[in-house]
Each structure stands twice: as C-alpha cells, then as structure tokens.
C-alpha cells in the first residue's frame, strides 16, 4: 500500500539528489538538471499532498505551473549557457570565476 510518507520519501530523495548533483558536478548542464530534480521533487510533493491530505485542485495547479515555469527557466538557463560557451568554449563551472576579483 503506497502512503503519503512513501511519496514524501521519494521526493525528499529527489531533492537530496538534486542538491548533490548541483554541488558535485562541474558541468553546467548537469547543474541545470539538478535544479530540475529539485523542482520535480516539489511538484511531486504537491501532487501527493493533494491526493492524500486535501482534495482540492490547488496542488495540481501548482504542479502544472511548476512544470511550465521550469521549462521556461531551463530555456533561459540554456540560452545563457550557450552564450557562455560561445565566449569561453567551455561549460566547465570553474571557468566562471572572472568576477572573483
């Protein structure tokens, strides 16, 4: 029997994974993916809560919006990454240290 807690467990797992990816990977694309993971964990939460706790549509709407906006954000993010790549010929995060000094 699948309960709320299992959903939450999964979403939390996703969340942690996302964080881990963002911290660990040097590839900017990967980091963007990590962000997606986190967003998804949130979306999953919303869906699960709607299913189990209260039966209005708020959660679903939230999840939908999350998906949409995540797409948009990813698009912009990728655009910026491309621009960065065009300049530096690299998508290595360590190359983004110009502003240190």
């Amino acid at each position, binding site marked *: 029997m699948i309960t709320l807690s299992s959903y939450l467990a999964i979403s939390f797992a996703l969340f942690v994974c996302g964080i881990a990816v*963002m911290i660990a990977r040097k590839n900017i694309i990967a980091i963007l993916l990590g962000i997606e993971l986190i967003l998804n964990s949130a979306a999953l939460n919303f869906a699960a809560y709607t299913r189990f706790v209260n039966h209005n549509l708020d959660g679903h709407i939230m999840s939908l919006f999350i998906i949409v906006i995540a797409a948009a954000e990813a698009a912009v993010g990728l655009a910026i990454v491309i621009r960065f790549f065009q300049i530096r010929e690299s998508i290595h995060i360590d190359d983004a240290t110009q502003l240190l000094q």
Partner: protein
Amino acid sequence: MALNYLASISRYVPELLSVVIMVGLIFIEACYDREEKKKPFFYLAAFFGLTFVFVNLAADLSKPATMIFTGSMTIDPFSTLSKMLMVLGTMGAIYLSKESKDIYDNLKSEFAIMAVGVMIGGMILASANNLLMVYIGIETLSILSYALASFKKNEERSSEAGLKYSLYGGISSGIMLFGMSHIFGVFGSIQFADIIAGLNGLSTAQLAVLLPSFIMFFAGIGYKIACVPFHMWAPDVYEGSPLPVTTFFSIVPKVAGLAILLRVTMTFFGQEGALQVTWVGALSVISALTMTVGNVSAIGQRSVKRMLAYSSISHAGMMMMGVVVINELGTRSILFYAITYLFMTLVAFYVTSFVADKYGNDHFERFSGLIKRYPLMAIMMTVVMFSLAGMPPLSGFVAKFNILGALLSEKHYMLALIAVLNSVVSLYYYMKIIRLMVLKDVESMEPIIGFGVMNQSIILVLTVPVLALGLFWSGIMRLTEGASIFLGP
C-alpha cells in the same frame, strides 16, 4: 468575499496595462529597421505608457483594499504604493539605459521591454496573496532578470553574471518550492486566507514541519532581496551586468521582494506565538547581518558601482529591520525608506554611469575634482551621498529615523544601535566620494558628454525629492499611513 471576475479586472488595470505596454513595445521595436539607432517613438511610448500606469495606480490608492480573483491577489494601498515605486524605478532605469553607453545600442529597446516584464513580475509579487502567485511572481521577475544580467552578450563577465544569477535563482526557487509544498501539505491550501485560518490549531508535529518549510520559503524571497547569507550572487551580478541593469536590480526586485516578505510576515506571523518569536528572531539576525556585511564590504571597494551594490545590500538590511517590527509603523517606515531610496539610488547611479561612460571605468578617482567641472552635478551627488548616509535634513535621515522609530517602538534597542553604528560606517565610504569630488583637484577638464543639459536637469529633478522629503515629509507620511497590509475582511 472576493469580487467576481469583471470587477476583479477593473481593479487589475495597471498590471494589464503594463502587459499591453510590453507587447506594444515589442511591436514598435519590430517596426524599426535594425540600423535605427535612437528610437524616439519607442521611448515616447514607453514613458507615456508607464506614466499612464503610474497615474492609474495613483488613482487606485484612494480605493478600498480588496481581494480579487478569488482571493489570489490583494489590491491594497501598500501593494499599490510599492507598485508605483517599481514603475518609477523602471522608468528611471529605462531612461538611464537610453542615455548610457554601457548597453549596446541595438539592445537598448530590448532592455526596456524586459524591464517592463520584470516590473510586471514585481507587481504580481507585490500583491500576491497565495503561494502560486508568489511563485509565478518570483519566476517572472527572475527569468527576465537572468536575461538582463547577461545583457552584454559578448562580454564574459556579463554572461557569467547571468549564469550565476540563473543557477543561484534556480536552486533558491527550487528550495522555496520545496518549502511551499510542505506548507501546502500542512494547511491543505495555497490561499493565504485559508492559511491564516489554519494557523491557530497546529500540532507540534505540524509546527516541526512548518518551521523548516517557512525557512525554505524565506530562502526564495531572501535571495530576491539579496540579504545575507543569500547575498553572495549580488555583488558579482551587479558588477557583471551593465550599469542600467544594476540600477534596475538595486531597485525593482528589492522593492518587490520586500513587499512580499512584509506581506508574508504580516500574514503568517501577525499574531503572537512560537512562530512569530522564531521568525522575528531569525529576521532580526538576518537583517543585522545583511546591513553589517553590506557596509563592511562596501568600504573595501575601488569601483563606485560595486560600492553602491554593496551599500544597496546594507540598505536592504535596513529596510528589513522595518519588517522585524510587525506593526503599522514598520510598514510605513519601509515604504518611506523605499521611496527615498529610489530617488537617491537613481541619482547616484545616473552620475556614476555618466562618469563611467566617460572614462570606461568607475573607480573612485574618476570623481576627483568634479565640483570644478560640473558643480551642480557634484553638489547633487554630495547631497545624495549625505542622504544615503542619513544626514539630516535630507530624506535619507528621515527614512532612517522612521526605521529607528519602528524599532524602538517595539523596544529593539540592540538592533537600533547596530543600525545607527552601521550608518556611521556607511558615512565613511560615502564621504570618500564627496572628498574626491569636492576637496581633490581635478584630473582633466575635458567635458563629460553624459552631463548634457537634459540629463543635468533630470538629475536635478530627481534630487529635489531627496531634499524636500527631508524637510516636509508629513505629506508622504500621510500617504503611507493608509498603506497597511490588507489581511482580508
């Protein structure tokens, strides 16, 4: 309770107008051919449109507060005022972008368009009354900001700034969402109104879930205000992005963020309880840290832009102190602070940008002897600097005084002391510019193109409030008095 849709729309004109303006600007922009450098009609439209929005909002001030779209949005004097501020800030930024050399000519119009977009996001955020709206608002604000940050396409620093901004924004919004989801889980609704209702009977288990979630929620907002410890992106981004953008960032998103922070605080933590104590404690620590870190960092800077960026962080901290005291006075003082801060920042950035355009960089030395060449500008800059530092009889002092009053009315003596001592520190680096401008000898006499008659007069006009609000501020106080947060009928 909530009005029906048509009625709602009737109260929602400004936002719609701005959308129309944005779309219209896109069309106008499309009409020009790409050789066209200065696009008079475009800017004319932009300014007229924004002025129209502004007027609309002003007219809205007198109307009673209400909730529209089934309570998902609140239209109350507070939100309206903050929207007006955003509009003004946007106009100022757009004008600067028009004049500045820091943006490629072919992108200037795009800047205007995106700015309006960001402004719309801010407006949504300012009157958001449920979690969804908060999310949408923040995202609208952010996504366009990422683009703005990386506006100097071919410049590495700029794109890097955009990169950082976007990644940082991504994680923070993600975490915020995660927090939201749990809040939703506890209360079973995303409507603030329902949440308030649910706040009373909470089990300890729920509280245990709730508090972390709120902190996560706060991360999203704090990142918009750029308060410690979510501030690290700010200096880099401010530095990396072109000057008009920096100007824009240091006004509109901050105001929006503060607006929502204030609304959330007032809504959720309005009444006494464990929640409030924790929240206030956290906020006071954060605000004190923000202010101090901002000031301390600002001292070490060589570039005026970076210095202003850091100082804007510290000012944000100052405004957050108004949030710490959860009462009318705090709200009022924050609004007043925002108003004065708007004008001061605009003038400061204008002058800096014009000087920077002349020399290609904006180091402090570039200002030396300005009084000999452009006495008016130098005096204006001096006034603004003193005002930022909080010297009477300038508006900056009155703003600080209000915040102080709010703090002390709630007997936050330590915070008050920290605040004033910080203003001493800030005076030090603001005075560095004054010293250079007034006391030092001039480097070169060749003219600065930026300081045309038009620009000078505009700067003058912008400085007038800085002076006037310092002496005759009861009018503004009366204006802000009505501007309380509307927590539903």
